[in-house]
């Protein structure tokens, strides 16, 4: 595991948040080091945005402590926490030009005008915003607006960047480009970033460490490949990876574990022989790979992912075999108890 070193930028200590009687964040502990790219993932409503807003100071924690760069910040207003935030809806000031959007925060902080100009110039060159500096947000496309929002964060030279699903309003092509830009930005600035997303690919490609949240709790923290290969429990196993891991009742296969899990890409398909015999229900041809949905006699409906093209018409009989050592075993509480 890529255990992060360096100074601690953000530390969460037993942070909880209640909205009335509803506990939305239930005791989060986390330590983020200088230069790390941390991604929060989790199902909708699990509290990712709330946690990010607590870090930013836009929301007070009900209990627990937030430390940023060695300071306890519970009574520090958002503007003085040394953070910058990029929002899903861009949130540009509609009455200000692109240049003034980027300048405003620094002006409020009393930065000298020459220094503001220098930083805006650097950021706008970095994000190719030079042609748009005089325009207003209404005159920009979605992708350009989000770059301006990122630029507005960059000029603040924050100790910590916070991104709340910054790409989810963009179309697929733009999402890839902007993702690349954020990755480059992270490398170039050697900045510490926390990034919330729904998107598997964004999480896997950007993160140094992924924090998997569920119902206000941390399920697991780890490098992307660590979560993929050694998920701590059934939830993480099912959440990381696409298509989703197949879960089979242990009893059906004569195993003592409550549940067995096998990823679709860890199954081999053979027309003649294998562990599970079944019929193809549906085939999805994606070009680069093929997803087969197979109704098996022993294990129920199983998804298998094959690389390249594979001709299998619905109704055909196939045999699936798990790769050795790739089948995960989970106990009654969902905890991982080994492989087979």
């Amino acid at each position: 595991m890529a255990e992060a070193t360096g100074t601690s930028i953000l530390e969460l200590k037993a942070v909880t948040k209640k909205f009335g009687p509803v506990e939305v964040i239930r005791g989060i502990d986390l330590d983020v080091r200088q230069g790390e790219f941390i991604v929060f993932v989790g199902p909708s409503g699990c509290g990712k945005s709330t946690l990010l807003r607590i870090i930013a100071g836009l929301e007070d924690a009900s209990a627990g402590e937030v430390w940023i760069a060695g300071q306890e910040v519970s009574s520090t207003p958002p503007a003085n926490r040394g953070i910058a935030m990029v929002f899903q809806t861009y949130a540009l000031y509609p009455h200000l030009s692109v240049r003034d959007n980027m300048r405003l925060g620094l002006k409020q902080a009393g930065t000298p005008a020459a220094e503001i100009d220098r930083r805006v110039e650097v950021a706008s060159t970095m994000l190719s915003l030079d042609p748009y500096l005089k325009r207003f947000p209404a005159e920009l496309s979605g992708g350009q607006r989000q770059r301006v929002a990122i630029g507005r964060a960059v000029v603040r030279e924050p100790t910590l960047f916070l991104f709340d699903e910054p790409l989810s309003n963009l179309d697929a092509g733009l999402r890839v480009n902007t993702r690349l830009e954020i990755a480059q930005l992270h490398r170039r600035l050697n900045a510490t970033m926390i990034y919330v997303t729904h998107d598997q690919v964004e999480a896997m490609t950007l993160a140094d460490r992924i924090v998997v949240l569920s119902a206000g709790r941390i399920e697991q923290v780890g490098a992307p490949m660590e979560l993929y290969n050694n998920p701590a429990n059934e939830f993480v196993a099912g959440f990381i990876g696409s298509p989703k891991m197949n879960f089979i009742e242990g009893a059906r296969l004569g195993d003592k574990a409550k549940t067995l899990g096998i990823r679709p890409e860890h199954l081999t398909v053979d027309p003649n022989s294998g562990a599970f015999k079944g019929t193809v229900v549906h085939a999805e041809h994606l070009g680069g790979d093929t997803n087969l949905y197979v109704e098996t006699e022993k294990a129920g409906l199983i998804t298998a992912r094959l690389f390249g093209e594979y001709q299998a018409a619905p109704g055909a009989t196939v045999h699936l075999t798990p790769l050795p050592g790739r089948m995960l075993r989970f106990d009654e509480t969902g905890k991982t108890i080994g492989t087979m």
Partner: protein
Amino acid sequence: MSKATSSPTRSIAAHGVLILYTVIALFPVIVILINSFKNRQAIFRSPLSLPGPESFSLIGYQTVLKQGDFLLYFENSLIVTVVSIVLVLLFGAMAAFALSEYRFRGNTLMGLYLALGIMIPIRLGTVAILQLMVASGLVNTLTSLILVYTAQGLPLAVFILSEFMKQVSDDLKNAGRIDGLSEYRIFFRLVLPLVRPSMATVAVFTMIPIWNDLWFPLILAPAESTKTVTLGAQMFIGQFVTNWNAVLAALSLAILPVLILYLIFSRQLIRGITAGAVK
């Protein structure tokens, strides 16, 4: 425009309905306007005909401008209306922002309390208001009218504006907070411009009852120096003789300022300025 809305039969029908409505709505106004330019006999002989060469007369306007101090009445009405609108919009928007933006104990209750005035007419409290004004020495001042009209306009303003303020993007306000804007600047610079169309709506709804009101000027400020236009026009309506020329002329003149205010606000109503804030 989409196909469905541009089909000729539909658009003829729609225009027909709109024209009919316009005619019905404008009819009384037109009757007042044309009769204000006619002599007394012509008004009663044929009230619907246009002023002709022998029926045309400016006697009404002459009476109005000679008798009483009509310009002063206009000034009073304008001061009361404009100041009241400004206060209603300012305090209404501030209260609406607080109610929609901050979670505090009793938030819902406070909202209901502020909206109560929509259902209970302020005139029920006339006696208490009069006592209050007498006690504070505000009788026969424009201030008394402004205070009452501000109170009268606030409930609806708070109610409408808080609904619109809830729709202003949280992200935008939060971006302002992270950039170090004070809550006042967030309110005045970010939120108010985005709810400007709804402010114009509130202004129009607030303005008309204030301008037309006869009740409170009669009770709180009937003195010559504080008369409003509607009150001033009353002096031509006597118990036995009514000077119809003068009444119609006064009413025609009273329409003008309100029309101008309305035009100012309706431009705001139409101007879409939210584009580009989000999405």
